[in-house]
């Protein structure tokens, strides 16, 4: 079966590690970890990304800017994007949905809910 590469964009190493530990037992997935939005932008042209999971609050470009970029691009607009933020920033989440986010989760979320969302987006 085809391997699905999930890009995780978060400046927190433990957050990335947590996300991976939630998802690593889904079959045929691999991960690319980006510490910043810039790293994510650089990886996209290399291709093969099946899903993007991104935090909103990050250094250099924020998650909304990354989302806007992906959804406006001819090449990447079909990649599903799952946005993650905290409950206080509901306003940011509203903006994310306006910009075309495919799903969102608010911290703290359970590992099961993340897994469910991801499976839905990957259609597995």
């Amino acid at each position: 079966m085809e391997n699905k590469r999930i890009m995780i964009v978060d400046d927190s190493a433990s957050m990335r590690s947590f996300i991976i530990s939630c998802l690593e037992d889904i079959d045929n997935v691999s991960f690319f970890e980006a510490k910043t939005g810039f790293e994510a932008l650089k990886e996209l042209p290399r291709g093969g990304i099946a899903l993007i999971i991104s935090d909103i609050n990050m250094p250099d470009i924020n998650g909304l800017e990354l989302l806007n970029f992906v959804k406006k691009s001819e090449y990447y607009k079909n990649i599903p994007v799952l946005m993650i933020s905290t409950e206080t920033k509901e306003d940011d989440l509203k903006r994310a949905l306006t910009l075309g986010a495919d799903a969102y989760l608010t911290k703290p979320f359970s590992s099961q809910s993340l897994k469910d969302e991801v499976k839905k987006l990957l259609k597995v």
Partner: protein
Amino acid sequence: MKENKSLKEFIAESEELSESIEKKLFELSDLVAEGKESPDLINAIFRDFHSLKGISGMFGFSNLSRLAHELESFLDKVRLGKVEISEKVIDIILKGKEIIISIIKKIVAEGNDSWQIDDFMESISLVFTGEAVKESGYESVMNSLKNVLTEYEEHRLYENIKKGKNIYSIQFVFLIDEFDEKLSEITNLLKGHGEVISTLPKPSDTPGNIIFSILFASDEKEENLPIKNKYVYEIEKIGNYSVSKEQKDKEIVSDSTQEVKSISNTIRVDISKLDYLMNIVGEIVTQKSELVRLIDSIRGVLQKSELNLNISKAMTSLEKKINELQEAVMSVRMVPLNQLFEKLERNLKKISHEIGKEVKITIKGGDTELDKFIVEELGDPLMHIIRNSIDHGIESKEERKALGKPEYGQIDFLAYQKGNNVFIEIRDDGRGIDLEKVRQKLINMGKINKDSEISDDYLIQSLFMPGFSTKDAASELSGRGVGLDVVKSNLSRLRGTVDIKTRKNEGTSFILTLPLTLIIVQAIVIKTSSKIFAVPISFVEEVVEIVPQDIIKISGEDAINLRNTAIPVIYLEDVFAFNRKPEHVKFLIIIRAGEKRVGLVTEEIVGQGDIVIKNMGKYVRVRGIAGATQIGYGKTILVLDPPGILEEVSRV
């Protein structure tokens, strides 16, 4: 699930965050004291609390999360201008940071985060007396932009408009591989003249390009911007406002009762102390081997007795403990290759930008560990190899297209451990080495005859010859060669070897073989012509029992037929010019270095064990000898260096 690992990361990260918060708070208090504004700094502190809240919530530390949340919202009010920054505000945040540190310590010690935080929470709410600033009148300005700005960025935009700054939207087009460097160059330049509110990436119609639009607020007129005439860009001035707001000065005194104890469980040690420790362990290991030998010989005398049994029990457990000690000390010195690989990756990216070739880099096995000393010494040779790959191996974009290869060159770093060796492979998908040109070069140098049949292996090996590869030769070959002899000698000092595999138009691999550690090695001790040598076991493929008739002549050279493969046979007597031959041909030690194999004729196998290799001093360098070692009391023997021997014999 790797929850344990995640938890460790959580503790390290939350400690880092609190340190970062503290550092920024001190910086901030200095700025506040000077009456300066620093929205970036306040935003960065806000973000740290935000991250802390996020991760502690995820790891189920709800108390810590609640506290971080309270501080985050407090900071949010500060950065959105709803609370004025002051000495008192900074004090409160510092106090909060200290409580956070205490809670992290509690988590480390007891695994839970219960702590009395209500009093502190109340003190925050007492400070919060500010009223929300009404934000209006600017929505019409940038409706399109508004959605992608976070609430904070929006606030900064508003603040700048209120102050009557000029607001510019500046568009740049970059290559996707270098946008981060260019962008930070530009934003640093701009920051000296105003505030960068947001940087928004946009897809470009040209693949490989990316558009960035920077939202910039400044007092400067368009023609005075520092980027003028330095970069190509499109600029648009947005809106025109003329309201102003005065600044307030505040004094600040920082907290001095800081906790100095760190929570993390690592210490830094001078490597020379570890060297010393390792040497002592090495000596113990040697003494142990001698002791084992002595005990073995008295056991014969004691015969079957209780004493005999007890001695051997005691010896076995001592041996076990010494082995454990050796492994423990060795493991302290081991570091993963990741850091080195990442450094090389950064360098490689820099070079590829400089020379305009684009490469994709993959790292595999970065967690493979090697002795710290070896890792340190590997930087130069690996850099050499990588430089070669990008300069000579990877073709230009046009060439690659013409060959039907992907536009991006591919360079892989691979590392893995096998037995007592670590293998590091640097692989590119470039043009490969043109062996025909190497042959021509060798003919020109007078090293080989025009008509002689030369194996590819020989041609590849000659790349490592000193003097083969001057700069001239490299450009003439339009292939590799710059300083590969240096690579080889660097590696042989580490008792490692380097091999090349190359295929035309498919690429070249450099494969490095290295021992795990340099200090203690396992060795076979052999005896020939009454001389004793130690052969490091990592180079020994097998030991074969033979009779003199097994040695045959193949094209005039001694060889042996081992399972239908011809292996050259050599005599140490010849290598070191003893002017004699062994009396009894009994064993053949098959040694391998890289791809090459050779059999060493020997009369006797004396034993096997751990040895500590001592260098023979700076000035004594004999090819084929790695150093000396002591076996038993005062008896010193030479340790062979198989790669050196192989080189010596293939030079004929």
